[in-house]
């Protein structure tokens, strides 16, 4: 029954999603923009990665780190080394996709039902709170994860097509896969859960979005930290981080069920 009820929610949410132009645009356009931007940076280094860039202090320190972590890259030219650096960071950058989709989708998920007053009838069915929250979160997280994976694939394709195929072996390490296939799902579900919580607590979608932006900030910081190269996520560190977030997911779902008081939703909405 639990499975059936969650599936019921997923089916309906997707049906609504695919009939709304705005949400379709978001799910398709945002990843394209992020992917294109990433590829553009790598291409810029390839084209203009001249002496001036390499002599800057920031890139010097980055190069220093690359040679420590991936000694193998020393056979490559300096611009190539920087390209490998960017490409290895790329999956972190892709995390922006689920996070941003979550901020704009999940925030509406409960608030909308409050406003149209379908929520009271929904809460009068035998659906369990956790089923409802997980269903709502997964309905956004699953497409976001799939889209992110497609972007990862397209990235590899793009790298091939743009003639950087020889760099693949340097950045396609276990960490790259862990980020894509473990960290991305974990962070997606986390963002959507947080989004749904924000939505359940808020009075309208605007304040829901503000709330969600606040809780999604740590995720954005993580991306920032990684991209700036302050902390270098090795395979082990990545794995630990990913597992930690999976654990946090379960924890957040539990907290969410507590925070999502059916009663206050019904009585605070008149």
């Amino acid at each position: 029954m639990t499975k059936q009820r969650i599936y019921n929610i997923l089916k309906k949410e997707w049906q609504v999603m695919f009939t709304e132009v705005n949400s379709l645009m978001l799910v398709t356009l945002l990843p394209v923009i992020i992917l294109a931007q990433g590829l553009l940076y790598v291409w810029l280094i390839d084209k203009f990665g001249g002496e001036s860039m390499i002599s800057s202090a920031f890139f010097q320190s980055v190069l220093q780190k690359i040679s420590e972590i991936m000694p193998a890259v020393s056979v490559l030219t300096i611009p190539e080394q920087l390209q490998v650096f960017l490409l290895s960071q790329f999956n972190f950058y892709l995390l922006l996709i689920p996070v941003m989709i979550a901020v704009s989708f999940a925030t509406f998920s409960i608030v909308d039902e409050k406003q149209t007053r379908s929520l009271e009838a929904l809460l009068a069915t035998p659906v369990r709170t956790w089923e409802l929250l997980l269903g709502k979160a997964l309905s956004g997280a699953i497409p976001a994860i799939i889209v992110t994976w497609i972007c990862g694939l397209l990235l590899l394709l793009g790298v091939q097509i743009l003639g950087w195929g020889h760099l693949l072996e340097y950045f396609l390490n276990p960490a790259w896969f862990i980020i894509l296939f473990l960290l991305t799902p974990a962070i997606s579900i986390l963002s959507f859960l947080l989004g749904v919580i924000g939505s359940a607590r808020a009075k309208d979608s605007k304040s829901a979005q503000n709330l969600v932006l606040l809780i999604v900030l740590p995720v954005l910081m993580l991306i920032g930290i990684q991209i700036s190269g302050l902390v270098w996520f090795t395979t082990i560190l990545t794995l630990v981080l990913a597992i930690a977030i999976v654990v946090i997911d379960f924890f957040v779902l539990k907290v969410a069920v507590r925070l999502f008081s059916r009663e206050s939703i019904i009585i605070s909405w008149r």
Partner: protein
Amino acid sequence: MLIETFNLTRKFGERTAVDNLNITAEEGKILGFLGPNGAGKTTTMRMLAGLISPTSGYAVVDGIRPDKEPERVHEIIGILTESPGFYNNMSAQRNLEYFAGFYNLSDASAQIEKYLRLMGLWERRQDKVGTYSKGMKQRLAITRALIHKPKILFLDEPTSGLDPEVSQEVRGLIKNLSQEGYTVILSTHNLSEAEQLCQRIAVIRTGLVALDAPANLRQRLFRHQTMIKLEEIDERLIGAISKLDFIKNHSREENTLFIELADPSKHQPELIKSIVEAGGRIIEVTDKKHSLEDIYLSLLNEEEKI
């Protein structure tokens, strides 16, 4: 008793919405909630349906405490909420399928078809709910409360916003449902609706004012009166009546006498005989009927005086 409440109380901050309510509802019967705006009808229904918790006291619904095990109560109830909402961008049928999907139903689509047809919405089932009129939405909401064949049906003002014809149809439907064995709890402001449908009526104003069958409520408040309309009433007639010892009370309004008898069936012939003998020319003899509205208003007035 299928439903029983024990000092059921709900406060919102300082304000008491429902105060020490003790009511019962029998299986297969229709219980009406009657009361002025803000009397706590919706709040009581929500507590019985396991949507909100009482601040003190409790209810038992089919052996289950709604505040302790709301999900189990949700399995056996259907509720028409005060202002029902739908997913406006989805068709009526899809909306019902979605809500049906939360119950363990083997024949959901058959049930949906049955009630959509019954509610006269079958032809419009593919239309988006957003395009529905208020009355259509209300009928759809009643359908939604029914598709999983709940044991208990809560209907919060089921005919509000419906035109007289559809209201009558909905009332017929509710009556049929109770004959099929559904237990119905119905709140309404429409007194004749309550009288037509309910075996028992709970008059509520924060606390319980009265709970009884409409006929009993009537008897409790008003003694039996015989109404006699005459061509003319003169002093001789009044004098003759005053002498009759079985008359407990009498009053006069133009050419009509209102007389309260100790035992109407026994004394009415006697009374009429005396009037005729006193020269009175009788046009009409009837029992004075009190509408439920009279009862309701006097119940609430009585409350106010206390």
